[in-house]
């Protein structure tokens, strides 16, 4: 797993992936996104060499883009997607604690989070926190719904939960 983080600028993805391709890598699943002015990349890379060798392959281009680079040896499981069956949406006035309260409640109610994205919007004076979670649960959705309703009341956040019903055609 190749992780790259640094100040955002145009061309990061193209330059990094060209370097990897020219070095004989094959890319797997990736998440690349801009978070608060930083560009972040987490990317599965298939590479016939040690993590250190991959790091030194990417090193020069990462340095030139002022990106910090990190490589972890992982087992790459492709073709084994776990499908989410629940989506949760949360927003409210920003404050410390929203994420841990919501995810703690969901974990206790039996949700396994597969994907979480959050943004801070609003103005600098009145920031709002917006979070979207996809996960999988074997529990009835009502159980999660009830737990979130309590949280929404006590912690003053808006929550919505809905099933993800995949149409398989």
């Amino acid at each position, binding site marked *: 797993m190749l992780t790259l983080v640094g100040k955002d600028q145009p061309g990061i993805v193209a330059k990094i992936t060209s370097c990897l391709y020219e070095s004989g890598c094959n890319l797997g699943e990736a998440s690349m996104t801009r978070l608060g002015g930083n560009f972040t990349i987490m990317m599965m890379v298939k590479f016939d060499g040690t993590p250190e060798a991959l790091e030194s392959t990417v090193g020069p281009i990462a340095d030139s883009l002022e990106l910090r680079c990190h490589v972890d040896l992982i087992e790459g499981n492709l*073709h084994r997607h776990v499908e989410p069956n629940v989506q949760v949406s949360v927003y409210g006035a920003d404050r410390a604690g929203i994420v841990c309260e919501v995810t703690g409640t969901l974990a206790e109610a039996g949700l396994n989070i597969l*994907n979480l*994205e959050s943004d801070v919007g609003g103005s600098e004076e009145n920031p709002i926190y917006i979070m*979207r979670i996809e996960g999988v649960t074997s529990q009835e959705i009502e159980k999660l719904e009830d737990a979130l309703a309590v949280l929404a009341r006590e912690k003053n956040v808006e929550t919505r939960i809905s099933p*993800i*019903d*995949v*149409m*398989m*055609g």
Partner: protein
Amino acid sequence: MALMEILVYPDPRLKQISEPVEEFNDDLRSFIEDLEETMRNGPGGVGIASPQVGRFERIVIVDVSSKPKIKHHGRLILINPEITAYNGFAVGREGCMSVPDYTGNVVRAEAIELAAQDEYGQEQTFEMEGYEARAVQHEMDHLEGLLFLDRLVSRRTDLFQRKAYKKAGSKK
């Protein structure tokens, strides 16, 4: 009855446009039986289109009756189907027997009106909504060589806007 092999992307034949059915004969009905068996054999399959098994004719089968708490018309054999009206929009998650191990969010009309023939050539019309309308639109896309991959929207796209869209639509 026999199970047929499902074409899997990147098989280029999935991008082919299918031809209208002209003859409503026993060969057609026997093929439809096999197509239905193939659909029901797929994991969770609620619809199938003829080009998915390599027969490039405008034939779609949809049956969402196994899903609880939704409106539906039961088993639908749709030949030469045409959507005559689209209403509202909804985002929903789709997968496809021709695209294993991937699902994605797709925007579809929330409700449609549909004209099609049955396996004897009889004209029929339907009004449908929600999950069933989504399944029909997904399968009809196959007839045009389109996959749900051609219509993906971001995972960030709000899955909860359906009611808001409906409200906006009803004001018209």
